[in-house]
Each structure stands twice: as structure tokens, then as C-alpha cells.
């Protein structure tokens, strides 16, 4: 596979991968690095891409796994530093942004468990079919629906709390 052909197949979904990476890693710098890394890996294995039915699904799975690994190693390495003073700042930030409905939804999505977060991202933002998502996250459609329902409900509950709090 030549570089032009590779770019034509793989580059159209760079933004989608970036959004997914950012959903998992939160930091935009980290997400950029992750996408870069994923593209290098894809480029390295470019001859294998053709074998996959959907290069897009393959890239999504790759990004998901890379980001989760990244997250794991991060949490393992600076768990102590993050916990002591970072937490206070974040809750302050959260209160400041409480008025802004949109950013609060993003914050709520951040606090979801990783799998639910990923599934919600793939369904509600990237608009994939359940069958596609099931392949991407290596699961089945029923499980995907259940996770999605849980994620949406959690956000609804939290939003209701915030909403009532805002009114009273």
C-alpha cells in the first residue's frame, strides 16, 4: 500500500479518532499524541489494513486500546501526586462551570466508566450502528445497548440533580 492510498483510506477518520481519544484521555495534548501514535502504528501495519473488513473499525479499536493503556500507565505512575491537590482544583472548576449546561454534560461523560464512555461516544457522537460498536469494543450488541442505556441514564440523573439545584 502506497502512502497516498494509505492516506486516502485512513485519514478521513482522524477527527473521529481524536474525539474518541480525547473522550478517554480528557487532555487534548494527550489525545493528539495518541492519534499520532495510532497513525504511526497503522502506517507500520499498512499492508495488514486491507485484510480487515473495515479499516475504520480497526482504527477505532486500536485507538481505544492505546488510550486505555495510556490511562492505566498514567494512573499507575502518578497516582499520589494527582490525588492530593488536583482534586480540589477540579471540583472548584466544576462549580464555576456549573452554569454552562454543555460543559457540564462533558464533565458528566468524563466521570462515566471507560467502557460506557467509549460506547456513548461511538453511538451518540460518531453515530455508529450497534453491530459496528460491538465489533469495535469486542462485545455483543445486547451488552452495548445495556452499557449505553446505563451511561445515558446516569447522565440524565446527574443532569436532573444539577437542573433542580440550579432552579432552587
Amino acid at each position, binding site marked *: 500500500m502506497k502512502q497516498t492510498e494509505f*492516506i486516502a483510506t485512513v485519514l478521513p477518520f482522524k477527527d473521529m479518532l481524536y474525539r474518541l481519544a480525547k473522550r478517554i484521555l480528557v487532555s487534548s495534548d494527550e489525545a493528539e499524541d495518541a*492519534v499520532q501514535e495510532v497513525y504511526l502504528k497503522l502506517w507500520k501495519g499498512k499492508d495488514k489494513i486491507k485484510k480487515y473488513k473495515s479499516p475504520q473499525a480497526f482504527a477505532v479499536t486500536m485507538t481505544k486500546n492505546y488510550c486505555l493503556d495510556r490511562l492505566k500507565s498514567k494512573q499507575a505512575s502518578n497516582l499520589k501526586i494527582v490525588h492530593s491537590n488536583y482534586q480540589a482544583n477540579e471540583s472548584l472548576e466544576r462549580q464555576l462551570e456549573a452554569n454552562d449546561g454543555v460543559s457540564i*454534560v462533558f464533565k458528566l461523560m468524563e466521570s462515566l466508566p471507560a467502557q460506557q464512555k467509549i460506547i456513548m461516544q461511538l453511538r451518540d457522537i460518531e453515530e455508529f450502528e450497534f453491530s459496528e460498536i460491538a465489533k469495535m469494543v469486542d462485545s455483543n450488541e445486547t451488552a452495548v445497548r445495556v452499557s449505553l*442505556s446505563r451511561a445515558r441514564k446516569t447522565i440524565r440523573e446527574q443532569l436532573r440533580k444539577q437542573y433542580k439545584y440550579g432552579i432552587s
Partner: protein
Amino acid sequence: MELANIEKLLEAYFEGNTTLAEEATLRSYFTEASVAPHLKEYVPLFSSLQLAKEEVLNKELVLSEETTKTSRNWWYGIAASAAVVAIIAGFVFTQPNLSQEEQEALTAFNESKKAMLLLSQNFNNGTEQLALVGQFSETTNKILK
């Protein structure tokens, strides 16, 4: 879109039972201006989902890093093959030296063979002389008869 339908879709949405088309309908309803008051609490959710679609990657992706790596590999290949050629060439050039040694050994062998032959010839000469001695005793016997 009538309100009852939207409410039904919302219910299905939270159960994870809506199709992509139905979800699009919900998003467009909630991002439009006129949302029923009792459904206002869902506006932030759908408007942020809509907004999240628009985020793009601003950084240029680098693929050339890989090409420099492959050219380095190429150089490794050249270095390795050069080393192999040098080793083979070394063998080839040292080959005549070895045969020269062999030639020396061969000449030495020939020399010693000649020496051995000379020795055995002289030894044979010696036995011829002995034959003469035998003849001498024969003739003396004739005379003494």
C-alpha cells in the same frame, strides 16, 4: 414533530432502543428553539452531543518519521551486506596463500621422495655388487675343480 412522539422517543433513547434516525430526530428537536418547558432539562445533553461532533484534530499528523526509520533500516542492510562481502572477499583472497603453502608442502614431499629414491637406488647398487661377489665364488669353484 409532535410532543407525544418525542416523549416516546426519549423513553426509548434512555433504554438504548432508538435507531440512529430516531436519535437524529431527538437531536434536531432539542437543538431547535421551541422545546416544551418540561423537556428543557434535556437540552444541554443533546446540544452538547451535537457540539461534540464538531471537534476536529488541529495537529498535523506525521508519517515521515517512519520513512526515516525505513531508510535507516536500508542503511543497516547495506552495512550488513558490505560486511558479508568483506568476509567472503577475505576468504577468497586468503585462498591462494593457503595453496602456496600447500605447494611448498608438495615440493617438500617431492624432494623427500627424490631423496628416498636415491637412497633405494644406492641400496640396489649395493646388491648388484654382491651379485658380483657371488660370481667370483662360482668361478673359483670352477677353477678348483
